[in-house]
C-alpha cells in the first residue's frame, strides 16, 4: 500500500535509524502517568518562562514605541534607561536559556527516558499478549506497517 510507504520517519531511508515502533499503543503512552508527569514538569517551566519573556520583551518594545522620552532619560552620565532595559533583554535570554538547559538535563531528560521506556515496555507486553510470542519474535511488518494495537 503506497500510503504506508511515505512519511516521516520513512522506510525509504535505510541509513537513518528511526524506529517505527508499530507495537506501541500511542494513546496509552500519552495517558501514562510517566508521560503526564513529564508534560506537567516541562509545562510548569516553559509556560511561565514563555509568558515572562514575552511580557518583558513586548513591555520593552511598547516603551520604545510610546515612551521615547522615558527611554532617553539618563541614568548615569548619559547612559540611558532604554539602553539599560535593552541590556536586561540580553541577560534575560542568557539567564532563561541557562535555567532551561539545567532543568532539561536534570529533570526533563530522565522523565522523558522513563516515559519512553514505559511506552516501549507496555507495547512489547501488549503485542506479546495480542499476537503470541512467535509473532513478536518475527515482526514481519515492523519496517513499514503502522498497525497499532489499540484498545477497542
Amino acid at each position, binding site marked *: 500500500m503506497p500510503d504506508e*510507504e*511515505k*512519511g*516521516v*520517519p*520513512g522506510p*525509504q*531511508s*535505510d*541509513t*537513518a*535509524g528511526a524506529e*517505527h*515502533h508499530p507495537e*506501541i499503543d*500511542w*494513546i496509552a*503512552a*500519552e495517558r501514562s502517568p510517566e*508521560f503526564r508527569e*513529564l*508534560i506537567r514538569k516541562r509545562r510548569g517551566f516553559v509556560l511561565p*518562562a*514563555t509568558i515572562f*519573556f514575552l511580557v518583558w*520583551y513586548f513591555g520593552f*518594545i*511598547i516603551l*520604545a*514605541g510610546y515612551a*521615547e*522620552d522615558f*527611554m*532617553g532619560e539618563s541614568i*548615569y*552620565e*548619559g*547612559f*540611558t534607561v*532604554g*539602553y539599560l532595559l*535593552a*541590556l536586561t*533583554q*540580553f541577560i*534575560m*535570554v542568557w539567564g*532563561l*536559556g*541557562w535555567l*532551561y538547559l539545567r532543568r*532539561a*538535563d536534570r529533570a526533563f*531528560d530522565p522523565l*522523558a527516558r522513563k*516515559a*519512553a521506556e514505559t*511506552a*516501549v515496555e507496555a507495547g512489547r507486553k501488549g503485542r506479546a499478549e495480542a499476537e503470541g510470542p512467535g509473532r513478536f519474535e518475527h515482526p514481519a511488518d515492523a519496517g513499514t506497517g*503502522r498497525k497499532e494495537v489499540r484498545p477497542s
Partner: protein
Amino acid sequence: MTIPIAADLNETALAIFAIVVGITLVITYLASKRMTGAVQFYAAGRAITGPQNGFAVAGDYMSAASFLGIAGLIFLFGFDGFLYSVGFLVAFLTVLFLLSERMRNSGKFTIADVLSFRMNERPARAAAALGTLSVAGFYLIAQMVGAGVLIEALVGIDFNLAVILTGAFMLIYVVFGGMLATTWVQIIKAILLMSATIVLTLFVLAEVGWNPVDLFNEAKAKSPEGDAYLKPGLFLASPIDTVSLGIGLVLGTAGLPHILMRFFTVPDAKAARSSVMWAVALIGAFYVMTTALGFGARAVLGEAGVEAAGTGGNLAAPLLAEELGGGAGTFGGDLFLAVIAAVAFATILAVVAGLVLSASAAMSHDVWSNIVRHGRDSEREEVTVARIAALSIGAVAIFIAVLGGAGLNVSFMVGLAFAVAASANFPALLLSLTWRRFNTTGAVTGVIVGTLSSILLVIISPTVWPGPDSEGGAFGFYDLANPGIVSVPLGFLGCWLGTVLSKEERRAERSFDELYVRSETGLGAEAGTGIGLTGRPAGRTPASAM
C-alpha cells in the same frame, strides 16, 4: 545606490577572500567524499555536535544585514537600530522553548516532516513547502542583491560578477558538499565574524578611553539629532510599527526553514537545545558589540561619514574599520578594510548556502519525493533531485539579482521573509505540535492566509507602494512597514478557522498522540548515523537507541 569606497580593485581583500574560499573548497571536497545518501546530504549524518551546531546556527543566522545593516542603522539612527539586535536575539527563546527539541525529535529533514506527521500528507507537505520556498526565496534574493552591492563597493568587483561569484560558490558548497560543507562554511564564517567584531569593538573602546558610557556621549555629540539620537523614534517613527516589527522578529526566527533545518543535523534533542544555547551566547555577544560598531562609527566618523556610508549606512562598519586602522591610504586602514570586506563576503556565502539547502530540501524531499513520487523513489534519486533543485533555485536567484541590478528594491524582502515565517510557518508548526484538534485543512488555510497576507500587506506598505520608501502607502488607513501585528494573528486565525470549519478528518496515518509522545520524549527519533568531517562516527544516545 552606494558610493564605492574602493573604486579600484582591492587586491588585499581579494587575497584574504581567496584564502577563505580556498579553505571552504577543501572542506567541500572532504564533505563530498563522505556523501553517502540523503541523511548525509540534508543533515550531515546528524553527526554535528551541539557546540558546532551552535556556531553554525550563528553563522546561518547573522546575515550581512545584521553585521553591516544593524551597525549602519545604529550609526544613522542611534537607539532604534539596537531594537533589531534585541528582537533578533530574544527570538531564540521562542526557538528554544517551543521548537528546537520537538523538531529534532519528530522530524527528519524539513519543516514539512513535522507539519505533515499526523495529517493528510500531500496537502500538508505542499503547504509547508510553500511556506519554506517563500521565505527562502525572498531572503535569498535580498541576500544576492545585497552581496552584489556590498562586494562592488568594498572589493571593487562589478555588481554582476559579484552576484555570479557568490552564487557559484554557494552552489558548489551545497551541490557537492551538502549539509556537511554548508555547516563548516557557517562555522568558519561565525568565527571570522566574531573575531573581526571583537577586534573592532576593542579598537572602538580604546578610542573612547575604555569607558563605554563615553561612547554614547561622543556618539550623541557627533549627531545633529543631539539627545534624540539616544532615544527611540528616529527610524521607527510609528509606535505601532515598532511593536509590529517586534512581533515579526520574535516569532519569525522560529519559522525560518534554514535555521530549523539545522536542528536535524545533531544526534539528539539534548544536542539541539545545547546548540541553541551556544548560538544564543555567540549571537548575543555579537549584537551587544553591534552597538560598539554603530555608536563607534558615529563617534569616529561623525556626520561627515553619512554620505560615504551609503544607503542604510551599510558601509559604516567597513569605513569605521578603515579609520581605526589608520585611515584611507595607510597600510593599517587598507588592511582593516580588506579584512572586513572579506568577512562580509564570507558572511553572505554562509547564509545563502543555508537558504539554498533548505529550499532544495523542500523541493526534493517534500515536493518531489513525497508529493510527486509518493515516497516510491530511491534515496539516490531524491539526492539527485535535491542537487538539481539547488542548481535551479540558485540559477533563478542569480538571474533575478542580475536582471534587477543594484537598484532592485530589496530593503523590504528580508522583512517579508520574516513576516511569512512568523505568519505562516510558525503558527502551523506550533499548532501541529500542541493542538490535538488541528487538522490538514487548518494547516493549509493557515499557511496560505499567513503567506498571502504578509505579501499583500508588504506590497501595500509605504516601503513598496507606490515607490520605494514612499510616504503613506497605498491606503491612507494602513501605513505599517512591518505587517507582523496584522499578519501573525491572521495566520493563527486561518489555522483555527480552517480547523473548526472543516469536518473532523479521519486520522490520516498517525495520531496526534504518536506525534506528541515522540516529540516530547524523543522515542524512536532519527538517530545520528553519519560521519563527521574528521571521520568520527556519531554517537547514539540512550533515547534514540531505544
